């Protein structure tokens, strides 16, 4: 646990600073009310009314997020494997090649089906 307390210290410091800044900007800055100023920016035209969060957005982002998750998971397994690779040697290599090949199959599928194309 001792290894982690310093991180807590730094995190507290940073949080304090950030929160302080956010509050300061509200306190220090001038306040001149202007209705147009509070509208969201749309190059000067009347902004289209939208729900918070902007409503819906392209499916593409979901797909990217999902692909990311899949590969991130792969990385989860690669790290411990890499760290202890020297002990496993050949066995580790063979097994991991099988693993990577499996992931690669999915990857090839996604690629070919246009999952990696952004348009």
């Amino acid at each position, binding site marked *: 646990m001792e290894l982690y307390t310093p991180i807590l210290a730094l995190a507290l410091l940073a949080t304090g600073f950030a929160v302080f800044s956010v509050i300061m900007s509200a306190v220090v800055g001038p306040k001149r009310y202007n209705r147009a100023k509070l509208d969201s920016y749309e190059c000067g035209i009347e902004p289209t009314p939208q729900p918070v969060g902007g409503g819906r957005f392209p499916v593409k982002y*979901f797909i990217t997020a999902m692909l990311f*998750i899949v590969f991130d*998971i792969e990385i989860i397994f690669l790290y411990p494997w890499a760290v202890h690779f020297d002990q496993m040697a050949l066995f580790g290599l063979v097994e991991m090649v099988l693993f990577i090949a499996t992931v690669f199959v999915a990857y090839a599928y996604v690629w070919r089906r246009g999952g990696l194309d952004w348009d």
Partner: protein
Amino acid sequence: MTQYVVLSAILFTIGCVGVLTRRNAIVVFMCVELMLNACNLAFVAFARQHGNLDGQITAFFVMVVAAAEVVIGLAIIMTIFRTRRSASVDDASLLKY
């Protein structure tokens, strides 16, 4: 260690209650993920208690599974959402519940 287990139990219960009471499919789904993460916490805590690493390894696998679930779950929810423009579980009620 007990605190961790208790915490995981609380998280698990929150997730569980969330699944049962919420009506938005995505929220329900997030509650399920919360349950899985509560499990992870329990696994890691028990791993520490027993001094072996089985629990930690399990946590890895659980993450994988959770990720796969996310991918499939979001795909299903999105399809429904696009068809019906709503993610409420109640709206999806062609089938008798």
